[in-house]
């Protein structure tokens, strides 16, 4: 019985701490949202609309709203342009995948060119050594042999 009571007490204490851990931080949201008039992130802007948006974010966090919920509310008011990063869905996915696709294509092209270049090279024919020079070289080398 004492064990059950202790477990319940621990749960009761842990619940607010867990909830606190999920609560979004205003500073994080301000770095992920853009001021619609000056186009810089809220944490870098002191424009009147940015100040108003920061106050809104704080009031919604205090009311227990989640990060995604707050972002969506701001998108509903100001449009998707307030998101510093475009959403990872639908047509906006192109923004994420195009650069990766470009890098992959470039890597493939470089690889193909390198392969072709290495295969297409003719071995440099060895120039025949002048017999007189070869004899002289042999003599010189013989001097160093024990």
């Amino acid at each position: 019985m004492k064990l059950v009571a202790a477990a319940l007490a621990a749960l009761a204490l842990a619940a607010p701490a867990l909830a606190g851990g999920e609560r979004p931080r205003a500073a994080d949201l301000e770095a992920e949202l853009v001021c619609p008039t000056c186009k810089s992130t809220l944490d870098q802007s002191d424009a009147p609309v940015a100040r108003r948006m920061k106050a809104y974010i704080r009031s919604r966090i205090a009311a227990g709203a989640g990060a995604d919920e707050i972002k969506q509310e701001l998108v509903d008011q100001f449009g998707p342009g307030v998101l510093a990063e475009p959403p990872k869905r639908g047509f906006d996915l192109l923004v994420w995948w195009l650069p990766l696709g470009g890098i992959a294509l470039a890597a493939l092209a470089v690889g193909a060119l390198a392969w072709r270049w290495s295969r297409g090279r003719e071995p440099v024919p060895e120039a025949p050594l002048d017999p007189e020079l070869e004899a002289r070289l042999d003599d010189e080398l013989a001097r160093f042999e024990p």
Partner: protein
Amino acid sequence: MSTARLRLAGQVLAVALVAALLGLLVWKVARGSDGGAAAELASGRSPAAPAFTLPRLDTGGELSLASLEGKVVVLNFWASWCLPCKEETPRLQKAWERWRGEGVVVVGIDAQDFRADAKRFMKRFGVTYPVVYDGKGSTLGRYGVTGFPETYFVGRDGKLVGERVQGEIGDEQLERGIRAALSASP
């Protein structure tokens, strides 16, 4: 396909890609700096006022500029967080009350703002003229709005007339603009 043909196709493709990207850049630069209808107005022309259909804040439903054809429209861009807007709103309200009998409509376009803030603002200043909500600011680029407040005058034929007023509008500017719009159109 021979190697030479493959190489030529690759080169053509690369040149086409670079040309397309350059074209896109030129188009974006040209489009971004055209200054909207305000630039045409400043150069002495009388362009058609860019069309819009936006949700109303004063009542339900939507309001389109086209539905106001035949009337002179005073188009005022504002936001509740804009300080000069607080100063000029009573003047716009006064003008609406004075001129509405002569076919003049004052229309507020609340842009880049919270709906709830805008409604509080309208209540505080006793605004009774139509106000539409453009949170995303979709009309700003087409008109060439550079800040808030900004006011345009639209003649009965739907064309912009007079001068674009940047910043807080005065009583005289308001009257001059309305008279110019009334006399410019049949």
